[in-house]
């Protein structure tokens, strides 16, 4: 439904082209373009992506869209050479590459398809690929690898053992393990029977405190 000011615009459009009679469809398209510029409506997200992709020279991946929904003026028209190549590719994918160009095209298509959606790799093929990648090294490279590996292991062992454990853990800062007699009154011997549990309770409690101190000391917390 057209509004009064829409009719004025249509009339103005006609009058701006004196002597030129526009077809109704052309007029409608022009009017639609003006209306979209003046009051743009919602655009389909996929169509938006496609427009962006084409405007940016294909840098964005265009989603799969129904070309029928794209305005005709935005649809690309394949030239003759492109159509011939597409036909050759279709024939190659059908299993009948007839020319060297078609075979090259088929190889390229397979590479692209595997890159986009790789099929699961058969285990034996995987092993073969690994063997080819790892096993076909030169003799010099194998010897070099072995010697370097051995030297690295020896160097690691030397480095590991050259670290003085006394320096690594400042034992002077740590609470040492020691007799528990300080926890009991020396003038009062243990009862003849019983109270073993209370003794171990006291010992474990005291050493829990010592362990906490040692952990803080190890972490450098005072």
């Amino acid at each position, binding site marked *: 439904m057209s509004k009064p000011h829409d009719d004025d615009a249509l009339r103005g459009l006609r009058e701006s082209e004196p002597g030129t009679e526009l077809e109704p469809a052309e007029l409608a398209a022009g009017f639609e373009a003006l209306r979209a510029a003046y009051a743009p409506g919602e655009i389909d997200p996929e169509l938006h992506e496609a427009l962006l992709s084409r405007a940016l020279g294909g840098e964005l991946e265009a989603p799969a869209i129904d070309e029928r929904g794209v305005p005709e003026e935005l649809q690309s028209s394949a030239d003759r050479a492109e159509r011939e190549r597409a036909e050759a590719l279709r024939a190659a994918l059908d299993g009948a590459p007839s020319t060297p160009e078609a075979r090259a095209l088929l190889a390229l298509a397979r590479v692209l398809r595997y890159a986009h959606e790789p099929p699961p790799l058969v285990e034996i093929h995987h092993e073969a690929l690994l063997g080819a990648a790892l096993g076909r090294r030169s003799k010099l490279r194998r010897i070099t690898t072995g010697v370097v590996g051995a030297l690295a292991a020896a160097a690691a*062992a030397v480095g590991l053992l050259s670290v003085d454990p006394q320096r690594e853990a400042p034992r002077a800062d740590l609470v040492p393990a020691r007799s528990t007699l300080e926890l009991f009154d020396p003038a009062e011997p243990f009862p003849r029977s019983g109270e073993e549990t209370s003794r171990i309770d006291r010992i474990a409690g005291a050493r829990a405190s010592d362990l906490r101190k040692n952990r803080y000391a190890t972490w450098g917390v005072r």
Partner: protein
Amino acid sequence: MSRSRRVWLALVLGAMALGGCRDAGAPEGGPPSAERAVDASLFSFLSKARSAHHLADLSLEVGDRAAAIAHLEQLSTGPRPASSPEVLEVLADTHARLADLRSQGGQFDAAELEIQRGLLLAERPTHFRGHLFEVRGLVEERRMQSLREAGDTAGAERARKLALDAFEAAIEVQDEVIRAALGADPGAAP
């Protein structure tokens, strides 16, 4: 040479370097036990010991002496960290309690075995060593009573003498502990 053999060769060379460094550097056996700090393994053992003794208490509350002994045996025969005074003292105390419990059930020889194991751990004059002698006296007292009731007068007399010797040994050890605490004999302190 295959890849795995090369890896093994590298490991062997590393191990050889490791052995050479040990000979040139640190003394065998690591630092003396006196240098050992209180660590997680020691505390884990003490925590286990506490649990074992509490479990024994709970078993004794319902009159199940065998279960109490079983709980304590888990401690006395189970894994233990590197020796430290705490480990030795707690184990010695556990052997003393096992001896007490076994003798309550008439297992006097088994009780004496526990005492001997405990004395091997608590060699220095401490309350723990004194307590072991005291429990030995208790065990022999019970043996004496048992033999007397069975009409074995000579056996009861032998047990009585062993009990007296044990109690006297306990008193001697406790005296040493007190003297050490008072500074009269610093060398006796653990």
